[in-house]
């Protein structure tokens, strides 16, 4: 949204105490952490903290708060000391307060203040724990989730399952890794807000989410220059601030926690080849680390047959053929990925770089890795090259799960929503897959002790062959509406409608004259007793009905999604401000030239259809929604067109 210079300038000086993004923590080390938040106007940013909730007796120094401001207005000159916030709504301030001088491995409580006015609640829920000194022996637990950023109920359920599990065990997570696709569908700022920050807010205020770039975030953020909503949202190390070597870019980085070294790669938009900057950095970083465990995470899985196929897709093949040799010769223990909407977990494996992937001679231990089953996977103490790694594909965090085949190196393949919890204590790493019901669906363990001589299995155990269930067409089930939405056009609202004739070609545009159209309540139709405006003459006479109405949106650039809830029979095309945004059941053409209408029964059910590319067409103020409903033919026994409009902001 473009605003005037005057408004932008006003925003620069206006005080407010409303968070437009609630406080969250970033880039923790053993002696520092960032607290980040956003407001819609300027404030006097202060973070106070202390080791007891009622005693916030220390304060982040003024000079340690970075202020960023979002404006697209080139006439607005940013004041000295204010940096640009690239992708947020106009007039947004983002504050990044660095708290330094912390004691290692210590819980601190904090509050965000506007001057002396406390903005965060007085409850003790705002706290974080500084990292232990790198190299310290300390048990750790972290959460791994991928492909979750739908803003739908499933994302919330998967998150709750983790929260409840850790509460039940009285062992909270120390941090979490997101392996990408955290803000569908294009990683826009508003999608980050509604589908990531708001969904995970209670967790994000306490622990750092260390992110990996997914392809959906990559639609709006670029790893090469670190610009976009993803890079606005996160503070990632570029100069080895949290352990590891300086990458120079936020797109790939490493950090230490206790005796473990974590490596994040950008598998989406950077050169994955051995000669690329990322692979060269990776090799150097692996040669440096002194920790006992190496965990790598990135978005595109080197091995999968979930919703993606690593034998066929370029990014996945390149991660396998270019990056895996470097990781394995560097002694990696676990590789965590997403992208493929499934849970897959491998046996202990090494050197599987061929295409297609085969299990023969790359599996070092074909057991299930469960201490109560075939026993844990075993490796030598410390870091040794090519002693095997476990691959975990955790792309099941929220979006539709799917399987398209069997990856032969996998020990567990589970087509269910969930996430992964990993504990490391001394020489033992334990991973579990927690499903959406909070049930443990997989457990594996790696023990690094003594000296182990790896042997390659010529004929390892292999998962059963799998074929798609009969009757499925391989397509996604109907879309779910967002979890949080408001209604922009009510159910059974009054619409203008035209039935029994065709309008001019521009009928869907706002400036088209519809003064001679009738008005009636949705739904429109006949023959199935579900209609409020009954079109009693439609049968045998005409097949198309046109409806229109306006709705208002205050600020279009804060809308994360907009879509129709609609009961329909048989097909329809929807237009937003004159542009087609949904088409279903209409093969080609429109209006009188619509062809190939497919049969569909409403059955009293409202299906959800998100508008495509709505951000290009949606305006501040009054918008026009137009829908043409089509019956399959003149003799069809019924017709239904019953929409309402929902909006996620």
């Amino acid at each position, binding site marked *: 949204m473009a605003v005037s210079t005057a408004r932008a300038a006003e925003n620069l000086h206006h005080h407010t105490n409303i968070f437009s993004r609630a406080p969250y923590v970033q880039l923790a080390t053993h002696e520092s952490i960032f607290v980040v938040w956003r407001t819609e106007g300027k404030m006097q940013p202060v973070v106070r903290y202390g080791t007891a909730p009622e005693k916030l007796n220390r304060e982040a120094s003024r000079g340690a708060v970075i202020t960023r401001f979002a404006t697209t207005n080139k006439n607005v000159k940013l004041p000295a000391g204010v940096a640009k916030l690239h992708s947020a709504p106009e007039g947004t301030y983002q504050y990044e307060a660095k708290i330094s001088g912390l004691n290692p491995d210590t819980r601190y409580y904090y509050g965000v203040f506007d001057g002396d006015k406390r903005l965060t609640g007085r409850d003790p829920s705002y706290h974080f724990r500084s990292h232990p000194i790198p190299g310290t022996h300390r048990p750790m637990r972290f959460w791994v989730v991928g492909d979750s950023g739908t803003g739908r109920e499933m994302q919330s359920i998967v998150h709750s399952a983790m929260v409840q599990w850790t509460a039940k065990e009285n062992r909270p997570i120390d941090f979490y890794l997101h392996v990408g696709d955290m803000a569908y569908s294009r990683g826009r700022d508003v999608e980050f807000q509604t589908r990531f920050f708001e969904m995970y807010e209670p967790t994000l205020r306490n622990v750092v989410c260390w992110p990996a770039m997914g392809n*959906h975030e990559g639609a709006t953020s670029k790893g090469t220059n670190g610009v976009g909503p993803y890079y606005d949202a996160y503070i990632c190390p570029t100069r080895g601030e949290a352990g590891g070597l300086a990458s*120079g870019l936020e797109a790939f980085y490493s950090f230490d926690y206790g005796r473990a070294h974590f490596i994040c790669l950008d598998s989406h938009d950077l050169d994955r080849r051995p000669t690329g900057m990322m692979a060269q950095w990776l090799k150097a970083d692996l040669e440096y680390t002194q920790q006992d465990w190496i965990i790598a995470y990135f978005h595109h899985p080197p091995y999968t047959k979930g919703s993606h196929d690593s034998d066929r897709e370029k990014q996945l093949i390149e991660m396998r053929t270019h990056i895996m040799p470097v990781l394995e010769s560097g002694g990696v223990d676990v590789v965590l990925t997403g992208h493929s909407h499934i849970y897959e977990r491998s046996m202990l494996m090494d050197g599987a770089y061929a295409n297609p992937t085969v299990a023969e001679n790359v599996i070092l231990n074909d057991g299930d890795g469960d201490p109560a089953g075939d026993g844990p996977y075993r490796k030598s103490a410390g870091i040794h090259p090519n002693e095997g790694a476990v691959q975990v594909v955790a792309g099941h965090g929220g979006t539709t799960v799917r399987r398209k085949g069997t990856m032969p190196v996998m020990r567990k393949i589970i087509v269910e929503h969930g996430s992964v919890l990993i504990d490391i204590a001394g020489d033992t790493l334990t991973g579990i897959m927690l499903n959406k019901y909070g049930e443990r669906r997989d457990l594996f363990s790696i023990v690094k002790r003594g000296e182990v001589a790896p042997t390659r299995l010529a004929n390892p155990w292999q998962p059963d062959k799998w074929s798609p269930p009969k009757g499925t067409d391989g397509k996604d089930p109907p879309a779910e509406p967002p979890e949080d939405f408001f209604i922009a056009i009510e159910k059974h609202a009054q619409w203008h409608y035209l039935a029994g004739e065709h309008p001019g070609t521009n009928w869907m545009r706002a400036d088209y004259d519809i003064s001679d159209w009738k008005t009636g309540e949705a739904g429109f139709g006949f023959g199935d007793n579900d209609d409020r405006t009954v079109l009693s003459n439609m049968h045998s006479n005409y097949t198309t009905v046109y409806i229109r109405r306006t709705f208002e949106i205050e600020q279009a650039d804060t809308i994360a999604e907009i879509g129709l809830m609609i009961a329909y029979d048989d097909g329809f095309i929807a237009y937003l401000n004159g542009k087609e945004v949904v088409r279903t059941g209409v093969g080609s053409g429109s209006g009188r030239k619509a062809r190939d209408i497919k049969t569909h029964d409403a059955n009293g059910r409202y299906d959800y259809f998100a508008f495509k590319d709505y951000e290009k067409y949606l305006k501040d103020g009054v918008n026009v929604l137009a829908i043409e409903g089509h019956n399959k033919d003149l003799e069809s026994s019924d017709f239904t067109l019953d929409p309402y409009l929902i909006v996620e902001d």
Partner: protein
Amino acid sequence: MRARNAWGVALFSALLSSAQVTCAHDSPEHEIEALTEKMRANGASATLLARRASEWQSLRKLDHAQADLEHAILLGSDSVGLRTELARIQAAQRHFDAAHKTLERALTLAEEGMERCSVYMQRAEVREANGEHALAVEDCERAFGVPSPPLDWYLTRARLTGRTGRWRECARGLKEGLEKSGSIVLEIEWIEALIDAGECREALDRIQPHMVRARRKSSWLIRQGRAQAGMNSQAEAQSSLKAALQEIETRLDAAKPEGRLLAERGLAHALLGNRPAAAQDLEKARMLLGEAAPFTSCIERLERVLGK
């Protein structure tokens, strides 16, 4: 052509991102099927063709991708993003003349600044792949006219200036990038360039802290050996190189050696005068690294030492 000019990709991605579907990304086959279906119903459009080209590329079907991009351009949607992407695909198929022509056209369309500079950088890479190193350096310098060049451009420039033997210039450029970013990759290449430029004392000073901190020291030992040899400290150089070899032997997986590590072993052998072992490692490393081999700095150095 090896390199994928990330800024060229960014231009193309920008074109694609305006037309993403709202569902989670499906497999390329599904996407291609859906896009084909859509074009069958509503006719082809540049945006849909560009999206399908991107999916073809992820399946490595470059000829299909090229056809879609050419069709998109024919539909009147000529743009720098489409042109640079098309040139990249043409060059990957070694159609250098076609790639060159495509980029010439892109330059006429590109706006001043990052867009234009990224086209120059891509043309530098096409020229490099075609063996026109001096011209490639010229294009690279044009590309560096932009205020904040992406970090990987520093590596490309260093490689190209190195190929023309301009080591001091190469080191200077890398130092500039290092000071901006702190990147360890640029630091390593800078130290290597210092050695190649004969500034071995400074290189040794820079190597020393890494020798202390690194868990695996072989690559630093080789650098140290090269610098010591450059200062005519032959005995010290031999000792460093032998220590490097010793460590590499413990790290190399005999069954599935990692290409770059093998190239390092080859370089250590070569610097120690063991040419047959070095040549053997070079050959195997080239095989393992495939099309990336000619652009791997360690391979380049090994080839230089062996006179290949």
